[in-house]
């Protein structure tokens, strides 16, 4: 018990970081996801292909691998390119190749959630009856206006439950960032366990902290959904 009380402040700080990175991931992921989701519905084949390639890559490979690829892979690639540049007689211009850890964390989480959110948006848009876009177009709206004023506002309501779900999944998955030493909740717990050897108690505490966060959040989503239903 004493171990838990001692470790708790640091673990709660880690939980805060987990929440922040999840929230940023969802926000940036929504922007990426909207673009990629609309790209997948585009009439231009090349645009569609680009959207599909992105979504398939980030949904089809594990987040763990994506984090490694970004945090270690990108600096490795930069270093090789730089060496090649120098070997062909170029002036060296870089010494430090490593990525800022926050940058790498945000990038990997956002790209990953963007791919899932793209699918959520696409399904949301496709769930709107075809007659809606036809009515909008028949009034002279162009494709963009029909999307903006008619389709997306309706799709928005339908994507709230799956978006809430995505937030909860992502919050749990941010624990994978511990592999690069990013100090979110799981990493903080690991460090505290190493210090105190209170393995069972602290990991159980971590599990409960995640549980409280996900439970609270899903209640909030339920409420929001209820509120939007009334109009």
């Amino acid at each position: 018990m004493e171990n838990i009380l001692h470790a708790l402040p640091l673990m709660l700080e880690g939980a805060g970081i987990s929440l922040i990175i999840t929230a940023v991931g969802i926000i940036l992921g929504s922007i990426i996801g909207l673009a990629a989701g609309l790209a997948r519905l585009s009439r231009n084949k090349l645009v569609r292909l680009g959207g599909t390639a992105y979504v398939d890559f980030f949904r089809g490979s594990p987040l763990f691998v994506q984090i490694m690829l970004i945090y270690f892979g990108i600096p490795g690639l930069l270093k090789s390119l730089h060496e090649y540049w120098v070997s062909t007689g170029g002036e060296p211009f870089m010494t430090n190749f490593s990525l800022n850890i926050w940058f790498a964390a945000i990038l990997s989480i956002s790209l990953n959630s963007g791919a899932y959110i793209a699918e959520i948006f696409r399904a949301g848009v496709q769930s709107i009856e075809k007659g809606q876009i036809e009515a909008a177009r028949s009034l002279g709206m162009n494709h963009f206006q029909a999307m903006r004023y008619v389709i997306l506002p309706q799709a928005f309501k339908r994507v709230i439950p799956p978006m809430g779900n995505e937030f909860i999944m992502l919050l749990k998955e941010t624990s994978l960032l511990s592999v690069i030493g990013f100090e979110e909740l799981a990493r903080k717990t690991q460090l505290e366990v190493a210090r105190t050897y209170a393995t069972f108690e602290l990991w159980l505490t971590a599990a409960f902290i995640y549980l409280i966060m996900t439970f609270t959040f899903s209640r909030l989503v339920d409420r929001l959904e209820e509120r939007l239903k009334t109009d």
Partner: protein
Amino acid sequence: MIIKIKDLYKNFGDLEVLKGINCSIKEKEVVVVIGPSGSGKSTFLRCINKLEEPTSGTIIIDGYDITDPRTDINYVRQEVGMVFQRFNLFPHKTVLENITLAPVKVRNVSQEEAEKTARELLQKVGLSDKAEAYPSQLSGGQQQRVAIARALAMRPKIMLFDEPTSALDPEMVGEVLAVMKQLAREGMTMVVVTHEMGFAREVGDRVIFMDEGRMVEEGTPEQIFNNAQNPRTQLFLSKIL
């Protein structure tokens, strides 16, 4: 001629739906299209505002060749209102917003003016008290009248109706037809796909019978309903009259 259609063909994959339609429609004319289900009536109507892309042929609306890819179809569509069988009102917007959305966003009419027009139109279709309601709070007949008002708000020169009363309970058909009749009397150019033969007789200038992707016979309501020449027209009418 406000609508000129020449050699219109439309295929869906291997399925030939329209097989050479030639048809011209005068300004202020009310044309009623009848025919069995699957004969291509909706497809024909949807080609007129390019909700369906014709496979070949030319369609000229008020001087604009909409089969020419350089034509700004969004502009031409402002001149052509469409009313659907299933109303297709925007469920997230009030009745008033349904009617003002396109004039404000597409025609750049001021919000104030658009609302004034919308209220006039609502009065015309007998729904002045429903401006703030949402579509889900209205009956089918009321929704369809709002849909007509929404199309009229763009001040179109032509109105297309695709079985506007087919999804309605019988007691609501009359209120929608009454609005359409008034519109016809005011001189709107109308192309109406319908099974309402009373409407066709009362306000139709011309009735066209379609079957298997072709316009088989046409004439005044009198000629078609009382004196059809083609056996397929006769057979169809014997089933529905």
